[in-house]
């Protein structure tokens, strides 16, 4: 008996579809020479019409990842792009070879100022776009951000993924509307499979309203002019996402006076609300902001904004979060800022993506792509994470929760370290904690601290000791420990009230309290300039290497500076950003456990 005889016709169908698609392309993009259009044939179709077998899918679930191949990353001093796939997507300088819609190409060229690298501003942009458009997962862990590297470089990267996102949305819409027309005119028996359970295909997670504003502005610039003859609710959007006027003036004035670092004012100058979500719908002639999620193509939200919506759905029966069922592209930008907010929201959202919905939401079921019906949505979802530095949480999310069949690409950088930026003479003593398992590392670190570091502190009567802690859990642990030990100390954590902060800082400065506990988040959100530090202890290393420099430089003014830094094998990523990649390697491998920099 011939196996799967009945399926043969089905195979014919999809081939048939493929042929149609090809014709559409050549019709629409008639301007392009024929040989070109064939070679590029549309990553969109290729990605979504790939047939994934059950075995392949189960492999994706369990497969240990191996990043086998690497190429030099353009635009970086010392960095490599690594991939799990067998090759890298070809980098075309021309948009036409990358399967970008004709209309979109026009608007791209119109709103990019200096295209020096083919259709791109730089080799870096070109390379990044080619990764996006190949529908692989991308972890861009050294993203130039506007608050560190300036607007131009930042926007380059944002434009690249926006172009990809827009291209994806417009292709999806065009395919659906074309098929709608076809079905209206001819009475075909078989419905074409061209959509998901619900309409939204792209989700972009951003940390702050001000950033969402920037992104939407850029997005509207890139939208082809035919599609934006009207933009609905534009005024409301600018009103709600723009800076509240009075505050911003005050802020600006305050910023001028205060000596906060430039990146801080750049990041927090606008509307820094972290609770928002907005749906955007694209039609033939208009772009509609604030559309209902179920009729949107694109959802832009903060992790907190989306997680509260999911929470509502879990509590109330009438609500649901089925709009996340058919997300084909997830972009997480400024992950380093989200990390300071709450990364676990992102992983929670990741789990809710591409689930089988609970309701039908009026979708024509015969037109749902088979990949969604089989529950394989997550194997087709592309995840693009951009962050100015990476961390274990981001890596875990990228490696474990993203199971794109077409592979992953990540950046491996070599860091020069930031030690040279320390302006004062400080004796920095690095102590390595030996620990072999990740589950015990917190415990070992705490024991090491209490036995080796605290024992000395307790005996000496010296004041002005600041202990910097990266995680809130360690902060609480040390606080309880100090309480039990009846030490003289004060707290500066992310949840400390403003009045308590001022008092703590004063006490610490005047020596009424010997020890201060300071968390990375408190520093991220306030950038206090703490005075009166005589000795510095990094209980754990900061995520942001910049903070290491800033905190160390706070010791300015006292004599005999010294700092103690605890690290373990599991801090490799943080460590290499601070001391530099090559030194970090030595420090982790060496027989010595103590290292000193002056």
């Amino acid at each position, binding site marked *: *008996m*011939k*196996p*799967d*005889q*009945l*399926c*043969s*016709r*089905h195979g014919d169908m999809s081939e048939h579809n493929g042929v149609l698609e090809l014709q559409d392309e050549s019709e629409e993009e008639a301007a392009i020479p024929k040989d070109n259009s064939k070679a590029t044939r549309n990553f969109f179709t290729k990605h979504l019409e790939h047939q994934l077998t059950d075995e392949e899918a189960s492999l994706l679930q369990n497969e240990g990842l191996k990043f086998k191949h690497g190429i030099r990353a353009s635009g970086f001093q010392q960095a490599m792009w690594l991939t799990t796939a067998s090759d890298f997507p070809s980098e075309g300088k021309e948009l036409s070879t990358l399967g970008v819609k004709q209309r979109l190409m026009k608007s791209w060229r119109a709103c990019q100022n200096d295209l020096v690298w083919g259709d791109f501003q730089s080799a870096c942009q070109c390379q990044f776009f080619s990764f996006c458009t190949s529908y692989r997962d991308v972890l861009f862990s050294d993203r130039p951000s506007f608050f560190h590297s300036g607007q131009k470089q930042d926007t380059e990267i944002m434009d690249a993924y926006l172009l990809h996102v827009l291209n994806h949305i417009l292709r999806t819409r065009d395919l659906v509307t074309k098929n709608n027309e076809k079905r209206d005119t001819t009475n075909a*028996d*078989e*419905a074409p499979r061209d959509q998901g359970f619900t309409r939204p295909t792209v989700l972009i997670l951003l940390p702050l309203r001000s950033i969402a504003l920037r992104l939407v502005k850029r997005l509207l610039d890139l939208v082809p002019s035919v599609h934006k003859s009207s933009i609905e609710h534009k005024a409301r959007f600018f009103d709600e996402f723009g800076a509240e006027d009075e505050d911003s003036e005050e802020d600006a004035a305050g910023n001028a006076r205060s000596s906060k670092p430039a990146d801080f004012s750049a990041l927090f100058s606008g509307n820094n609300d972290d609770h928002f979500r907005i749906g955007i719908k694209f039609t033939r002639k208009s772009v509609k902001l604030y559309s209902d999620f179920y009729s949107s193509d694109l959802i832009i939200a903060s992790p907190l904004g989306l997680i509260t919506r999911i929470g509502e759905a879990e509590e109330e029966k009438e609500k649901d979060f089925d709009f996340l069922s058919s997300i084909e592209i997830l972009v997480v930008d400024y992950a380093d800022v989200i990390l300071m907010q709450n990364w676990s929201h992102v992983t929670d959202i990741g789990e809710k993506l591409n689930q*089988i*919905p*609970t*309701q*039908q939401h*009026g*979708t*024509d*079921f*015969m*037109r*749902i792509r*088979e990949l969604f*019906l089989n529950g394989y949505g997550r194997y087709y979802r592309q995840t693009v994470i951009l962050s100015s530095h990476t961390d274990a949480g981001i890596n875990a999310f990228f490696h474990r929760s993203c199971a794109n069949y077409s592979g992953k690409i990540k950046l491996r950088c070599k860091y020069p370290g930031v030690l040279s930026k320390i302006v004062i003479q400080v004796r920095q003593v690095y102590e390595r904690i030996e620990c072999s398992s990740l589950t015990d590392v917190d415990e070992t670190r705490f024991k090491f601290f209490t036995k080796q570091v605290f024992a000395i502190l307790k005996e000496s009567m010296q004041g002005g000791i600041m202990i910097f802690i990266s995680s809130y859990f360690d902060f609480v642990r040390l606080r309880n420990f100090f309480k039990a030990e009846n030490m003289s100390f004060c707290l500066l954590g992310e949840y400390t009230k403003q009045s308590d902060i001022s008092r703590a800082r004063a006490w610490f400065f005047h020596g009424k309290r010997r020890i201060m506990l300071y968390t990375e988040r408190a520093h991220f959100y306030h950038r206090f300039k703490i005075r009166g530090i005589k000795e510095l202890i990094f209980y754990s290393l900061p995520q942001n290497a910049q903070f290491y420099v800033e905190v160390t430089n706070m010791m300015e003014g006292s004599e005999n500076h010294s700092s103690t830094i605890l690290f373990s094998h599991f801090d490799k990523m943080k460590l290499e950003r601070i001391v530099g990649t090559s030194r970090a390697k030595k420090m982790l491998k060496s027989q010595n456990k103590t290292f000193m920099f002056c």
Partner: protein
Amino acid sequence: MVQDDDDQLSENIPTFKSLGLCDQLCEACAALSWEKPTKIQVETLPLAFEGRDLIGLAQTGSGKTGAFALPIIQDLLDHPQTLFACIISPTRELAIQIAEQFEALGSGIGLKCTVVVGGVDMMAQAISLAKRPHIVVGTPGRLVDHLTNTKGFSLRSIKYLVLDEADRLLSMDYEHEIDEILKLVPKERRTYLFSATMTNKVAKLQRACLKNPAKIQVSSKYTTVDTLKQEYVFVPVKSKDCALVYLLNELAGSTTMVFTRTCECTRKVAMILRSLGLDAIPINGQMSQPKRLGALNKFKAGERSILICTDVASRGLDIPSVDVVVNYDIPMNSKDYIHRVGRTARAGRSGRAVSIVTQYDIGLFLRIEELIGKKLPEFPMDDEERKLLEERVSEAQRIATMKMRERGGMRKGKKRRGTDGDDEDDHIVAKRSFGGKKQKGFAR
């Protein structure tokens, strides 16, 4: 599937091959160890291959499913198409069973089959339908639900419509749904209608949806198989439970189905038996679908040896290992008796059926005897031994009644029929009290 023994006598036994079945399907039949076609299959297959509409009047367990599945699959092989046939069955269990047969026959050719029944998540079914199966098997209520609510799903392309157990479909008030479905299927189609009896309603349905049908009647008379040993015990109403326990004790070690009239009764009997240490499990129309399937599977797998059920289970379910059928309540409808005892002595095996007759059931019982055309012998019961059981049984009864009362409070608000309305117990109960009084004076 069941092979009727009667055929063995005739010399030129038709084979599947000689009936015109293609090689692939002959192999599939052989793989299921269907060696030769059953009577109804012999009759239907050639007519079906001619492309005629069919009416089949056949008793349960006669191989009906094969009679319509084989021609449909054969045609599907010649004209591959998704959403090729739709089969409507009165109960969820039967629908699942039909789908299983289709899948078994079509496993080698990639046949996809979707079951659309109530009590199960709509979404999962919608997804399954969206995968475009070749065959849809369903109960009328849920099928109409999908046709109206699942966007994109339609039966416009089907080539075959099968109405299985049509008499039952109609007696369960599915007329409206069936009308609805008939409106939504194309006029150009083949229709097979199967029914155990030809009632007026079925005749009407036949006129409405069949074109020049060929009528096949396998056995017009209601008969029970000869390998079935049928008996009765006569006890007063109050010692019914005791008699049941006595019977189960006597027949210990066999797989038994006990039929009762009401859902409530299945629960109570199961409780009594369980507190006496017998592994009984109830199944009835008030249970949710997963629970019903769970109970059935436990019974099929041999984890439980006694299944207490209402008439939900009296038709179509193929549980080959049943040895004994006990009628705890005598069925109101004499034909149901045939269906009930048809659960045992299937496929040429032997079986035993015992009916518990009380003073109120005598009229009913006589009618049954009339229908099957024989007088039944009495089951030899040792009254002494039965009386020994009485004390323990009445204790168990007391406990069961107490438990039922405790639960009763919770149940009341929930008394809601499944959309499929799988059981007709309510009106039977009403009739019973009415009929019971009339027959009081009878003595045997």
